[in-house]
């Protein structure tokens, strides 16, 4: 049935049915897809139908086109627009030869811009570019997915920058066409691949600019929706300041260049290392102040005990000083072991604080603002002040005993 020769020679006694004839011709003409450029005419889009017909023409010829919207997305075409159609030549049952359209590319810059603005407006209204949907990038991704052209400069820029900045992330590279007739489907597949099979921590889509026509795939509704639906946060480096593609606008973060995208996706090792050094110094400084504060607060009441512990405190402070000076050297082992003793010291200081003593039922007796600690300091008729935990009283000494 597929071979014209076979049908016409071996079975030449039997006439083909019309359906057989059409199927036979279809087998021949639809074997390979075609890309045809021409001007749109006679565009017929019947409302409510899931398909449309139109012609494309040049000066001398006309080709009929059929587009089923289940196979490719609808593009509102106007008669006179210059387009490229990609599809399969097909003989329909009514005998017309049409191009069964799988993809439409707009050729003229003006027309492309009009479509771009229309689509941008539509998606914006739907909220696809809203800040509230932007996903946050992880601070320390363990792996980063990359969608870019094989051997493209975008690929080299991204991988070189990640390796330079932060060696802590593996790069999973999914090559894809980034312009031309297969770009859209390959990019969509790649985004789906990462989401379904390789859930990386962050995904970079990089292309590094191009004309409106080159970037057409990235302005397509399908890719924009795919990026929006991605569970993995996406950094885009596709368009440029003069023309952000719709993919850039929907991406969680957009970068001006592939190198910038890499910088946004991973931290810089040196920055993190310096941050850790800063934390080390900061902690040392604060802890040292804390020791000073505790000493000042309790020191007055703890003369006896303080003398004994002063050397320990000084030792710890000296060690913190060393840390502060040494900056990034490892010296934490020096102070190891000191802390249990510090703990006991602090508790003992608290215990001997006068307030604690008063609370236990003891009293402080003072004469002329000096503490009375011996019976020898007291004489009859002396005026003394006695402090309890919640107040004090005055009294005169009547008798004393020893």
């Amino acid at each position, binding site marked *: 049935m597929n071979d014209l020769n076979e049908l016409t020679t071996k079975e030449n006694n039997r006439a083909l049915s019309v359906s057989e004839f059409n199927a036979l011709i279809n087998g021949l003409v639809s074997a390979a897809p075609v890309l045809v450029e021409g001007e749109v005419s006679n565009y017929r889009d019947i409302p409510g139908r899931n398909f449309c017909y139109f012609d494309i023409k040049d000066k001398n010829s006309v080709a009929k086109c059929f587009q089923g919207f289940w196979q490719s997305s609808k593009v509102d075409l106007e008669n006179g627009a210059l387009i490229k159609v990609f599809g399969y030549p097909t003989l329909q049952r009514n005998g017309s030869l049409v191009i069964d359209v799988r993809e439409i590319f707009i050729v003229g810059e003006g027309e492309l811009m009009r479509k771009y603005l229309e689509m941008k407006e539509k998606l914006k209204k739907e909220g696809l570019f809203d800040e509230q949907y932007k996903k946050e990038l*992880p*601070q*320390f991704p*363990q*792996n980063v997915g990359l969608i870019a052209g094989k051997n493209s400069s975008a690929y080299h820029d991204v*991988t070189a920058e*990640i*390796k330079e900045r*932060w*060696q*802590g*992330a*593996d*790069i*999973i*590279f*999914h*090559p894809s066409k980034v312009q031309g007739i297969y770009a859209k489907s390959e990019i969509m*597949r*790649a985004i789906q*691949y990462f989401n379904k099979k*390789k859930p990386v921590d962050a995904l970079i889509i990089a292309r590094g600019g191009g004309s409106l026509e080159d970037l057409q795939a990235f302005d397509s509704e399908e890719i924009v929706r795919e990026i929006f639906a991605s569970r993995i946060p996406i950094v885009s480096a596709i368009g440029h300041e003069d023309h952000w593609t719709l993919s850039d606008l929907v991406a969680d973060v957009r970068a001006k260049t592939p190198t910038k995208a890499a910088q946004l996706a991973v931290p810089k*090792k040196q920055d*993190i*290392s310096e941050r*850790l050094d800063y*934390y*080390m110094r*900061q*902690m*040392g400084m*604060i*802890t040292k102040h*804390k*020791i000073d504060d*505790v000493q000042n607060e309790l020191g007055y009441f703890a003369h006896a005990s303080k003398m004994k512990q002063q050397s320990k405190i000084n030792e*710890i402070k000296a060690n913190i000083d060393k*840390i502060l000076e040494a900056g*990034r050297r*490892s010296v*934490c082992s020096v*102070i*190891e072991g*000191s*802390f249990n003793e*510090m*703990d006991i010291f*602090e508790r003992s200081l608290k215990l001997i604080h006068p307030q604690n003593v008063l609370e236990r039922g003891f009293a402080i007796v003072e004469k002329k603002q000096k503490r009375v600690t011996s019976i020898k300091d007291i004489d009859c008729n002396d005026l003394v002040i006695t402090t309890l935990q919640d107040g004090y009283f005055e009294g005169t000494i009547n008798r004393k005993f020893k």
Partner: protein
Amino acid sequence: MPAEDPKKKDFETVYKEIESAVRDIEEGKLSLSESMALYEETMKKIQSSKKMLRKMESRIEEISNPS
């Protein structure tokens, strides 16, 4: 499998712990012994994070047969 490397997996966790410890110490609500214990623990974490940083290495894997 790169995602299974336990050391790398830990880096973010350890880094976040360090950040939060420094915040706690800065706030000054801890007792002296608490803050010194936290200081010591965090110093150790910083040392091990710096070691992790030095050991890191990126690999590139290419999806050759995407399906």
